């Protein structure tokens, strides 16, 4: 069944339309509005966090202290990490979930629209508080995004309370978002949309939402303990009072490792949507994808101490966490093989979303390989806290999570706006990003293996040449993202009109609604066959 533009228009007019002005955005409970808000906010945070990365790379362009003092440098690495994780990547996925999940399962909106409004609108406050602390006396958080005790307790400044409150609000926002996603998927599927017919983006988000519900409260607990240790005299992490600083790391990484999967599972869903479209084939191994995603999620709870190999664990612990970590690469490998098998003998065309998806597959896998190297306990003793780790997680997060978000934006922008993006600009954006991102992150492997520690504003002379190259890659990558901003705003303003089914190989309910997607869709549930 397909829904014509007129039908959609009609249902639009007799319900209340969108109110105009600021109030529309402030009071909106419409999943598409909220999705757009999340995505635009995420873009803003991506640029903010990116600006901080530029400061970091400018300081590291040459050895010696040039531009900023070490304390400010530490604030930059810390806040860059926090902004990118909680402000850019996670809200972008939530934005995509808001836009796409109801349309993909044939629901008129998210299940809990008012909570949806809240979960977005508390986010800007959280980041305002966090960023404000940078300008206050004593400065912002400078203890790394992982806020290890005692750095965040004994040695942090008085603005740490602001950091704690900001993280609390971000956590509440993600939890509300996750609850909404689960309730929507469980209760609002159109009839006939059985579990094993769910699009993979919906599946991966459902599993992500459960991960969020399981671990965001643990993060909230960890920051609360930091708060009471610092301000109220408890000793959770203070050995003098009977606590243990290593316990902080256990609690943090019990959250932290599932968190990295929170940032990659929706990406898996996106890639599993885009690759079949442009290969003009069904996804290879749909069921195995679902099971692989679930096993990755479950395993992610038993590998946290691979971040802590050097804390002096007993041998049995080191071995357990080494093997458990390596085990995760099995379901991850299943996914990569399925994507490649989907492309195999497909009638592939290379539109921009597909280019990003292919880049994702290659470069994310590269990040997975460096992850495997880090998982080898004796090797990690050497690699830990060097730029090798920085290279690893930027491959999985930038060329992984961020590239998937870009792919998704190019894939669905025409559906959202009704206009095709500017192909030339998009090509420039893709190729500039692809080349510069590798100039930026690939040499980090080498300086890391050579022993350059992470999170330092100055370094030994022998690392100078590589760091200069890395910084140039960084500046080019940073500037290239302005092209993306240009593409997005040009596309919102206008462009070549697109048909309802924007991509000829695409499947799914979202392509049955008009382009641009009307304000209300599926007020009458569609039939799924």
């Amino acid at each position, binding site marked *: 069944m397909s829904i014509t533009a007129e039908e959609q228009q009609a249902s639009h007019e007799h319900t209340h339309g969108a109110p105009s002005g600021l109030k529309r955005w402030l009071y909106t409970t419409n999943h598409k509005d909220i999705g757009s808000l999340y995505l635009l906010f995420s873009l803003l945070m991506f640029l903010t966090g990116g600006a901080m990365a530029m400061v970091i790379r400018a300081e590291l362009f040459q050895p010696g202290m040039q531009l900023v003092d070490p304390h400010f440098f530490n604030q930059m690495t810390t806040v860059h990490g926090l902004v990118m994780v909680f402000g850019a990547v996670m809200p972008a996925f939530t934005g995509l979930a808001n836009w796409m999940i109801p349309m993909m399962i044939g629901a008129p909106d998210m*299940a*809990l629209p008012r909570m949806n409004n809240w979960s977005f609108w508390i986010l800007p406050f959280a980041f305002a508080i966090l960023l404000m602390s940078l300008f206050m006396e004593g400065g912002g958080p400078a203890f790394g995004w992982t806020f290890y005790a005692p750095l965040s307790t*004994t040695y942090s400044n*008085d603005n740490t309370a602001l950091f704690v409150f900001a993280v609390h609000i971000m956590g509440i926002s993600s*939890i509300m978002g996750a*609850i909404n996603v*689960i*309730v929507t998927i*469980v*209760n609002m599927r159109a009839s006939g949309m059985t579990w094993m017919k769910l699009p993979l983006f919906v599946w991966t988000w459902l599993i992500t939402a459960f991960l969020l*519900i*399981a*671990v*965001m*409260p*643990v993060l*909230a*607990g*960890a920051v*609360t*303990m930091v708060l009471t*240790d*610092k*301000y*109220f*005299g*408890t*000793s*959770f992490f203070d*050995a*003098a*009072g*009977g*606590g*243990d600083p*290593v*316990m902080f790391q*256990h*609690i943090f990484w*019990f959250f932290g490792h599932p968190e990295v999967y929170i940032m990659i599972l929706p990406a898996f869903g996106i890639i599993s949507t885009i690759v079949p479209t442009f290969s003009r084939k069904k996804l290879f191994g749909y069921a195995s994808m679902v099971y692989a995603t679930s096993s990755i999620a479950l395993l992610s709870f038993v590998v946290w101490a691979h971040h802590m190999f050097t804390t*002096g*664990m*007993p041998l049995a*612990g080191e071995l357990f966490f080494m093997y458990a970590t390596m085990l995760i690469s099995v379901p991850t490998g299943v996914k990569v093989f399925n994507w490649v098998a989907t492309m195999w003998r497909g009638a592939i065309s290379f539109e921009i979303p597909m280019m990003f998806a292919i880049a994702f597959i290659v470069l994310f896998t590269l990040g997975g390989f460096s992850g495997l190297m880090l998982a080898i306990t004796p090797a990690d003793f050497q690699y830990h806290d060097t730029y090798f780790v920085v290279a690893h997680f930027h491959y999985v997060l930038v060329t992984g999570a961020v590239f998937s978000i870009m792919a998704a934006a190019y894939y669905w922008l025409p559906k959202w706006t009704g206009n095709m993006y500017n192909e030339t600009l998009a090509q420039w954006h893709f190729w500039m990003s692809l080349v510069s991102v590798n100039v930026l992150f690939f040499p980090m492997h080498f300086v890391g293996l050579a022993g350059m520690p992470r999170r330092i504003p100055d370094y030994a002379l022998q690392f100078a040449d590589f760091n200069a190259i890395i910084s140039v890659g960084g500046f080019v990558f940073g500037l290239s993202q302005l092209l993306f901003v240009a593409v997005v705003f040009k596309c919102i303003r206008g462009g070549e009109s697109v048909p309802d089914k924007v991509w000829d190989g695409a499947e799914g309910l979202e392509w049955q609604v008009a382009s641009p997607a009307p304000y209300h869709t599926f007020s009458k549930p569609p039939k799924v066959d």
Partner: protein
Amino acid sequence: MHTPLLKKLVLAVLGMFAFAFALVPLYDVFCDITGLNGKMDLVVAEQSSEIDKSRKVDVSFTTHAKSSAPFSVKAQQYSVTVQPGKLSEVEFVAQNLSDKARVMQAIPSVSPGQAAKYLHKLACFCFDQQSLDAHQTMKFTLRFYVDTELPADVQELTLSYTLYDITSNTAQAQNNSTPLLSVAEHTYLRGQNNG
């Protein structure tokens, strides 16, 4: 229609928040049973009834004052060789290096970590908070023995003390006989602000 599911999810969130705090005692119990982190119970042990004369174990001592703690504590012997089960005594000399009266808490730790539960102390200055007047010197005796059950592959172990200045936390409780600061039970008895 959404309420039942919503309730379950909210409960799960609250449960996980509680779980984060439950990790604290769980972690301690886990480390206690396995002795993984080298942390020791601050409890007075009973004397051993048997002595293993066939074995010798080296026990070394080291102390380390936390950056701002103005104390020095030195063992009179760098290390001693003991037979498991046999009671030994080592003298420690502690000094307050500052111009003010201070309260010191020493936290013991053993490495290798798995040996922690085989080192038993009958008397230790770490059992109590120690008040030292300005520049006062004090002698303490550590009485301990190594358990006969100590795994055979452990031939030497190190007992290290980290010294903390807890003066500001004990401003009202000035005397020596304040109750044990029980590491194992995690009683957060420090009513006062750190900062």
